């Protein structure tokens, strides 16, 4: 029985880590902030959920298990709302006409370009917005670039991609963005 539980944990937690890897790859490879965010938040919620489910057989019922589930629920709430806030900021930045946080690869507005670590600038800046759990795997999982994962995530991200490319250059468009956000929150 414990062997079975261990096997379950091993498989489900590994599956969860796979989602984290997918999220990190998406974060590093996707072109614009909205699709990066899409990859990150989905992978976070699913990955952490699988890790929590995988750990459930290993902990004592009910209190530790319920705490784990509560952590997951809170992370989902926090992560998705943080995503909403970043998107709202991005809409505002687009409307203002500066690139916002998305185009840091080519906008050249960072003096840091001269230092060695600056190549990681964009990625590190965005990772910081993610919930803490994703920061740690990011360090170790980053080199494991998997084209297949990136491709599967890319198709899913198309919807957000289009939304990002829609012209949002005027004040009315910010209003539309805000209304959209309000709808999404309800």
């Amino acid at each position, binding site marked *: 029985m414990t062997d079975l539980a261990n096997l379950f944990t091993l498989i489900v937690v590994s599956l969860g880590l796979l989602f984290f890897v997918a999220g990190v790859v998406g974060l590093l490879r996707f072109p614009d902030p909205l699709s990066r965010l899409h990859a990150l938040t989905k992978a976070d919620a699913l990955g952490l959920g699988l890790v929590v489910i995988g750990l459930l057989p290993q902990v004592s019922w009910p209190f530790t298990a319920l705490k784990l589930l509560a952590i997951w629920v809170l992370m989902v709430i926090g992560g998705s709302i943080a995503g909403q806030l970043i998107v709202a900021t991005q809409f505002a930045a687009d409307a203002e006409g500066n690139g916002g*946080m998305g185009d840091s690869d080519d906008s050249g507005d960072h003096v840091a370009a001269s*230092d060695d*670590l600056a190549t990681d600038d964009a990625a590190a800046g965005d990772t910081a917005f993610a919930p803490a759990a994703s920061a740690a795997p990011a360090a170790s999982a980053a080199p494991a670039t998997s084209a297949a994962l990136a491709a599967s995530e890319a198709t899913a991200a198309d919807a957000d991609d289009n939304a990002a490319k829609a012209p949002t250059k005027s004040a009315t468009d910010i209003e539309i963005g805000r209304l959209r956000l309000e709808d999404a929150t309800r």
Partner: protein
Amino acid sequence: MSAIFDLALLADFVLAATALLLGLWVILTADALRAAIGFLVYGLLMAIVWIRLDAPDIALTEAAIGGGLIGLLVLGASTRVPPAPATARARRRWPLHLLAALLSAAVALGLAAVVLSLPDPAPSLAATVAAELPATAVENPVTAVLMVFRAVDTLFETVVLVLALIAFWSLIPDASWRQRLAWLPLPHPSPALVLLAQILLPLVILVALHLFWIGASLPGGKFQAGALLAGVWALAMVAGVMQPPAVTQRLPRLLAVIGPLVFFAIGLAGIWLAGDFLAYPVGFEKPLILLIEVVLLVSVAVVLGLILAGLPAATVSLQPQLQRAASQPRPALPSDQRSEPFLEDRP
């Protein structure tokens, strides 16, 4: 399998390397906002490091204060300080940077030398604390040290917190003394943020009370719980769910000092009742420690929250000129929409 391939050791190595590299990056990066965000992540990494060192009490404090509150303060400061002017001045300051680096390296190497030259086993009072623990009526040795054996340290730590608040408030210009603290509230908080604050407010209060209560027997206690409460108070103020207070209001001031006051009074009473300053009368240890912890919890939460709440908006604003002068594009945070950097506005 030799110990070198130990998985835990490997994880520790990755963790240490990440912390070092991130620290280096935070120092070297030129953009203040990015450095602030990096520092926030660094605080969370340090919390994991403390967990790996089997110090969960410190890890909790580091996560709440080092990662959360200080991160928020540094983030706020980085969006208010105008970006550094171009490189000419920075280049002239390289000897200063070199000196700072050398001194820091000397401190680090000195500490490493001390730690590595400790005898094995290292001198420790842990056994003495464990032997005397039953007399203190608490089960968590860290709490016992903080509240009983080294109570005088804890007392003056809380006094330092109040002093920090006074020093911070002394930056407020006379003209805006009576206004509400205005750094945190957003002019138009996103509905998602309001929702988050509404969800988290009761939950975090519950978690903080839990953390406070288990502090008697498990890692936790008033500082960690107070930092959590301060953090969620700040979130509520950002989202407009709660109004920030004004400096002139009596209640926040009273709550900020009540902890050290009660602690000091009980300590003084100990001279008569138990024969020494900060000694607890036999049989009353537990209720007295609990009373002190409750009032300290309130004071820690209020002082940290008031520091996070910042300063009142300045009445005379130089904002337009400043913005034109500092119109370098940078990643926009919601806090950028707020106005009035306070330092430049002082007469």
